[in-house]
């Protein structure tokens, strides 16, 4: 039996504990951003960590979120995928499109005090071309960069490059201070001229990247927020919980979390940037002879009940398609979305006509990121006699394995941006996602037509002809365009980008009700 003083001590201890808990929980579920006390702080949850701020090592996709605040680009590609002036106020090509002349702003200063001039453009493009990064190819088609004056620069090409302007709106256009380009610390301490400066002292790499307003920025009114905080949150559940409790303002969530996010009162925006489906790589039939027959490839396209897949695999967050180009691509042709409707009878007839009535065997990779789709693929290809054998591939070996050309056919997801960039990515003999290095004189001629056609409607039509040929020849079997889903705190409004999974910082705003 405990004594009265003992009970009093216990009572005091309990009271102290309760007081401590109240003190600790007294602030409620306040966020880190809110703790900073400025409603004009935008906290973004990113699905992956930053790789580098070195402009030669920048990446597209989710990584853009990290470098957009600090680096201006020569040209801007806005949310509607239209090109606008950036550091370059305007631009013109010569008659044969081998010299691009850019007029540059004269009021831009890098955060280290260096003035932005044509010399900076030359230094940056050479740094990218020679830097060995993933996107060095964007600058490698430029044979010479000629500063004509401080505010005029010429980019010389040996032949027209229909993707150059788009590249200058992406990584090729990102400008860092020329004084910082050779400093290895650029990877962790960006020196740009963008609307924000990176606060390395307040940031914790891998946890929280903090950007504050650049006081010398030339276009401050375009950016509503005083502080940008980016928190890498690769775990989807953690991100959703952070969104629900207001710890972060916005983030890209998996489609399986959409209804939960909506029920929690979060705002949902979508953009169909990526298409998913089969890349029928072995178009020459080198590994699986059947795939060399276009009738078989068309049969594969007809074997998939895509509306049902969109409903069950994507929870309705996508659109059926049969073309490997997004709706905002210059190559997009609306009617091609339905080029191969689900028709098992016709698919089987095509297989029989090609001499494969009994089907054939094919080995496809199975990896953790895409294994959700494999039962659908195996079952529906099985319906036309194609027997799929899955080979396990570790997630961090998937890209090297696919690029090696070892797999004749595989499920994959590719983003679609500008048409020429997509051609370079998937259709040319040396394209990375032409993994079996298929070559067609007919396709090459169509692509060269695009190169030498004047920009405008004619070039757009030529790009669409490339698309028609690729769909007709069934180089791919796209299933659907999958929505990238952005969930946001209702205090935030945003305009998703038509080409990119990341949202530009100037496309985030405070909701009017705030």
């Amino acid at each position, binding site marked *: 039996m405990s004594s009265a003083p003992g009970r009093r001590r216990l009572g005091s201890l309990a009271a102290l504990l309760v007081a401590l808990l109240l003190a600790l929980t007294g602030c409620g579920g306040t966020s880190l951003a809110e*703790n900073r006390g400025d409603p004009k702080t935008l906290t973004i949850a990113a699905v992956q960590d930053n790789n580098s701020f070195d402009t030669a090592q920048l990446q597209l996709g989710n990584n853009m979120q990290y470098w957009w605040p600090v680096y201006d680009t020569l040209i801007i590609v806005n949310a509607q995928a239209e090109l606008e002036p950036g550091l370059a106020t305007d631009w013109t090509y010569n008659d044969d499109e081998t010299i691009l002349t850019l007029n540059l702003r004269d009021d831009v200063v890098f955060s280290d005090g260096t003035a932005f001039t044509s010399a900076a453009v030359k230094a940056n493009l050479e740094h990218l071309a020679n830097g060995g990064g993933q996107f060095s190819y964007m600058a490698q088609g430029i044979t010479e960069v000629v500063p004509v004056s401080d505010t005029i620069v010429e980019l010389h090409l040996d032949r027209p490059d229909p993707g150059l302007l788009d590249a200058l709106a992406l990584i090729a256009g990102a400008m860092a201070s020329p004084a910082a380009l050779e400093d290895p610390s650029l990877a962790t301490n960006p020196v740009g001229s963008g609307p924000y400066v990176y606060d390395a002292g307040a940031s914790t790499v891998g946890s929280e990247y903090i950007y504050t307003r650049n006081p010398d920025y030339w276009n401050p009114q375009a950016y509503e927020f005083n502080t940008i905080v980016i928190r890498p949150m690769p775990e989807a559940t953690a991100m959703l919980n952070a969104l629900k409790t207001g710890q972060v303002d916005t983030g890209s969530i998996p489609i399986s979390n959409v209804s939960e996010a909506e029920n929690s009162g979060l705002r949902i925006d979508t953009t169909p940037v990526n298409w998913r489906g089969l890349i029928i790589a072995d178009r020459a039939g080198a590994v699986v002879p059947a795939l060399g027959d276009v009738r078989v490839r068309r049969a594969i396209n007809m074997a998939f009940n895509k509306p049902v897949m969109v409903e069950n695999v994507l929870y309705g967050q996508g659109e059926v398609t049969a073309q490997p180009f997004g709706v905002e691509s210059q190559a997009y042709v609306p009617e091609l979305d339905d080029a191969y409707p689900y028709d098992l009878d016709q698919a089987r007839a095509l297989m029989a006509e090609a001499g494969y009535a009994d089907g054939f065997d094919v080995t496809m990779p199975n990896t953790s990121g895409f294994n959700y789709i494999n039962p659908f693929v195996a079952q529906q290809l099985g319906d036309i006699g194609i027997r799929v054998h899955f080979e396990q591939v570790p997630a961090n070996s998937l890209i090297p394995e696919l690029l090696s050309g070892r797999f004749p056919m595989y499920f994959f997801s590719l983003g679609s941006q500008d048409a020429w960039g997509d051609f370079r990515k998937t259709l040319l003999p040396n394209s990375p996602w032409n993994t079996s290095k298929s070559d067609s004189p007919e396709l090459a001629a169509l692509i060269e037509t695009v190169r030498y056609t004047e920009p405008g409607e004619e070039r757009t039509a030529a790009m669409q002809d490339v698309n028609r040929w690729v769909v007709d020849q069934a180089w791919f079997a796209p299933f659907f365009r999958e929505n990238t889903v952005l969930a946001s705190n209702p205090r935030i409004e945003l305009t998703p980008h038509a080409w990119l999974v990341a949202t530009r910082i100037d496309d985030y705003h405070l909701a009017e009700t705030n």
Partner: protein
Amino acid sequence: MAMFVLRRLAAGLVLVFVITTIAYTLIYSTAGGIARNIMGENATAEQVAAKEVELGLDQPLPVQYITWLTHALRGDFGSSWFTSQSVVDTISTRLPVTLSMVIVSMLVITIVSVVMGMVAAIKGGATDRVLQVLSVVGFSLPNFWVALILVVVFSVGLGLLPATGYIPLTLSPVDWARSLILPVTALVVSGTASAAQQIRGAVTDVMQLDFVRTLKARGLSARSIQVQHVLRNAAPPALTVLSLQFIGLLGGAVVIEQVFAIPGMGTYTVSSALLGDIPSLMGIVVVMVVMVVIVNLIIDIMNGWLNPKARQQ
């Protein structure tokens, strides 16, 4: 005692060497394609080959290992292949996060499990049975599940505590404590239950020894016997259990840090493993092994202090 510590230290060094050698061999056996992953899809075969040379991946495994080891002995663990961040710098920012979570968890486990184990062993009867049932229930709850339930209830539902993130102690002690309450609770549920059971068993065993009966016959108070004699004699097995708990907490932190988006060693381990970032992974392996060695050394020293027979072994 000095010889005892030196022997344990020497054994620890051998362990560090053996584990890092095995880890290096295993990790590098899966290093194929890393250069391509770093360089990206647009790199040419020549660029990928040049990157392999730059990283030393073209060298035979023993050469690579000796190179790594000589650098590591100088404290140079290199930089991440994917982010260019110094491995030592990254670990120095992430280790305190994990350690603060694990050390607080250890304190909670130690206090709660000792109290539960002692009470169960001494009171017996219904109290013992209730505590045993609680222990079994606690032991069977997966920590990630507990973590998710805690977030749903206390963060999303009640809005009392942050759902994610970590605030350094130096920035705000109150926010630091708030950011740790849920992760620590999720981590300790299973460990406390397990340790309480072990401590209960150890205390029960000691309570049945002759010397306890003798002490009671000499008229010593129950509390004095329990604290000064029973607990001290039950301490060695309890310490061993607690040291195992500490090592288990380091593993548990990998999952818990993911659920709470805590930027510690756990999330660093997962991201490095997914990328195949070998310099980072090797740095993590070394730090984790050294920590295990240090904890075991401390436990051995404490056991030696408590039990002179252990010093002579």
